[in-house]
């Protein structure tokens, strides 16, 4: 009996003294995401969590550096030959993870896998991104021409995330195996193992054309719960997490093992106003709502100071941004005057809905500020699930205002936010329900279908002037993304929210 007790005691002590099971090998970098994409095949999903993994395994024709400029990747140079035709020169000597050399055939194959000429059923969710591509012509071993059906200014932007896959290998293993057990690219890390909802293991690829990444092993874990992610950060089980909210930043900043890195990103916050019905059918009321909100107070008190006020929904970093336009200042007196002019001297009752659960305090502050100037707001917060989607997709009418954000899908162009938010074409996002600004659709369409960048810039400037004046939304601010990183790793948050881990280095 005594023996048994003793050995139990010893066991407990050993367990307690043993270095924590989570201490990681030096050459391993572990990242936690909230989930995994359904497939590792980079063309068969369009999800942030999947893109973040894919970019580290696959190269595209172009790369975007930390300054968010285009950089050669698999293409060493590119130039337009006409409004609808581009030439790309391919890099020589690039090898896929299985040893096959990269050829022009692979590029053509990759694009046509998504556009699938001649096939009616497109299976890739990225089809819409590059549907404008009509033809891919192989000129010689190192030159391809991409032909679009009409001027397509977003082509380069789309090709920054358009991974090139090996044709021969794909034809050998088939689509299903490629997406689960045999993905092969030209990127810095190659595939080792995937356990769905647990981890993806990658290993540095010796033959990568940029050289070897600093970390030999890359593990991407799926951890849905934020509190669990934070606990993993604190114990060193995970080296990097994304989307750290403002209230958690101080805690992770002061922890001896972690630091935080923030960057302004392409996400913009706004309150979309329903222009089809009273009271927001009147321009003065919409402008009053814009004057009613103290954006600076929200940024400093609720966003941890991380945010930049904007005049419309167009981002300072996006192509077409007009920096001369001034944001609506906070002026509650003016808001009341405008309301009175619009015939609401005694105020009016409105409803506002949101499913932007992470920013509930912001939503509450906004509705409070609206109420204070006389737009008495009945606020309703939704769980961001099916019920909200149904409410929003089918009716859109049940609320006078909706608070939300738009991430532009990391496309640095004014079109990426103007079209989904304000264009009224069926199948659009919110605009089709709420926005009714005379002439706006036509301007958005026009800017979308020309490649003359100075002219596009002029049109976007006109659009921004128009929507600032017409105020189909309450314009708020851009958001930052904050990463928490273990101190043994050197890395910085990027403006496009990508995790380009080739840049991650061990800290000395």
């Amino acid at each position, binding site marked *: 009996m005594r023996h048994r007790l003793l050995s139990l005691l010893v066991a407990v002590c050993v367990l307690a003294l043993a270095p924590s*099971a989570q201490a990681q090998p030096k050459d391993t970098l572990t990242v936690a995401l909230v989930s995994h994409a359904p497939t590792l095949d980079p063309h068969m999903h369009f999800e942030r969590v999947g893109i973040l993994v894919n970019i580290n395994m696959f190269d595209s024709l172009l790369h975007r550096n930390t300054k968010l400029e285009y950089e050669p990747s698999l293409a060493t140079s590119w130039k337009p030959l006409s409004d609808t035709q581009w030439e790309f020169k391919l890099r020589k000597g690039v090898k896929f993870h299985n040893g096959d050399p990269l050829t022009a055939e692979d590029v053509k194959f990759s694009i046509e896998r998504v556009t699938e000429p001649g096939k009616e059923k497109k299976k890739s969710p990225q089809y819409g991104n590059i549907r404008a591509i009509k033809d891919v012509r192989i000129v010689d071993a190192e030159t391809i021409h991409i032909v679009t059906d009409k001027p397509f200014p977003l082509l380069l932007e789309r090709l920054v995330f358009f991974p090139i896959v090996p044709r021969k290998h794909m034809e050998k293993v088939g689509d299903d195996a490629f997406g689960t057990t045999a993905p092969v690219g030209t990127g810095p890390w190659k595939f080792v193992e995937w356990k769905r909802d647990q981890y993806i293991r990658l290993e540095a690829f010796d033959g990568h054309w940029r050289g070897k990444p600093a970390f030999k092993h890359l593990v991407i874990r799926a951890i849905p719960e934020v509190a*669990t992610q934070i606990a993993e950060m604190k114990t060193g089980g995970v080296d990097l997490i994304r989307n750290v909210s403002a209230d958690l930043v101080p805690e992770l900043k002061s922890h001896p093992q972690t630091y935080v890195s923030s960057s302004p990103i392409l996400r913009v916050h706004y309150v979309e106003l329903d222009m089809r019905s009273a009271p927001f059918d009147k321009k003065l009321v919409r402008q009053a709502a814009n004057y009613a909100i103290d954006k600076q107070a929200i940024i400093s008190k609720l966003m941890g100071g991380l945010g930049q006020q904007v005049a419309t929904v167009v981002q300072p970093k996006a192509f077409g941004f007009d920096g001369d336009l001034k944001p609506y200042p906070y002026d509650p007196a003016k808001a009341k005057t405008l309301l009175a002019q619009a015939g609401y001297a005694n105020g009016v009752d409105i409803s506002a809905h949101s499913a932007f659960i992470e920013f509930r305090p912001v939503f509450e502050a906004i509705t409070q500020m609206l109420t204070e100037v006389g737009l008495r707001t009945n606020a309703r917060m939704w769980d961001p699930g099916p019920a909200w*989607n149904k409410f929003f997709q089918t009716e859109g009418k049940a609320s006078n205002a909706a608070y939300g954000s738009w991430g532009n899908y990391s496309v640095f162009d004014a079109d990426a936010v103007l079209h989904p938010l304000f264009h009224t074409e069926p199948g659009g996002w919110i605009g089709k329900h709420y926005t009714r600004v005379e002439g706006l659709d036509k301007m958005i369409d026009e800017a979308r279908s020309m490649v003359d960048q100075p002219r596009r810039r002029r049109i976007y400037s006109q659009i921004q002037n128009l929507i600032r004046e017409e105020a189909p939304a309450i314009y708020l601010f851009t958001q930052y993304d904050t990463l928490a990183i273990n101190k043994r790793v050197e890395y910085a948050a990027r403006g496009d929210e990508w995790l380009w881990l080739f840049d991650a280095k061990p800290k000395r």
Partner: protein
Amino acid sequence: MVVCVGVSLVTFAILQASGDPVALMMPEAPESDRAVLRQALGLHEPLLVQFGRFFGRAVTGNFGNSFFHRAPAFGLVMERMPTTLILTVLAMGLALLIALPVGIYSAVRRGRAVDQVATGTVFLGQSMPPFWTGIMLILLFAVQWRLLPVSGWESWASVVLPTLTLGTFTAPLLLRIVRSSMLEVINLDYVRTARAKGVSEWLVICRHALKNAALPLVTVTGLQFGLLLGGAIITETVFAIPGVGRLIVTAIRQLDFPVVQAGVFMLAMVVVSLNFVVDLLYVYLDPRIRLR
């Protein structure tokens, strides 16, 4: 069988009412593109036809392909089923391991300190939701003392905290049942007779009293399994465990009808078969119940 049809029908109806998965999958696509996808997924047909086809296939284990994973839903569920079952069985084992001795002891020593503490703990335990317990356990054992991994499902060490979370969630109720049913029988005549015969107190309790007190316990244990499967959903999310519960929750958010259907159907099957086992146990425990 009736239960399975019922469960499927209810799930089907709720899912249909919850929105259009295609619109969720292609938020920015024009209606013409959506129609193509809808057709490919078979969502354009009348609801009755859809349900008929679903049920006809479901009985053969074919729930169709997941909209999201583009793989058979049944396979996705079965891949995760062992994990969930291991977790719930371990948790139930732990709960019984706590509930039986403590419950019996506090019944025998009714009103004493142990009983008081046990009753108090029951009250506390029942008021702690598993997501809270889970995070507290992580903070204590993984962050503070560094004894166990925070999350994952890779080693036996990573099984400990989720089992504790889920086990302590069920233990209080079982403990209460053990205690009250023991109290009921412990003063009955036959127990007194056994004692009078000179049977040792240990045997009296385990052999005579417990066997009669076990009926309600078995019933509740069977029912608790259903609840545990529900608790597993939360526990799996907190500890990043790849189980059925987490799969279903994600699938609901994505309106991935086939996966939700397959998941709910299979969990219902588990509960139904457990209830069957419970019914069989009755026969063993109470010879008055006969199978005809």
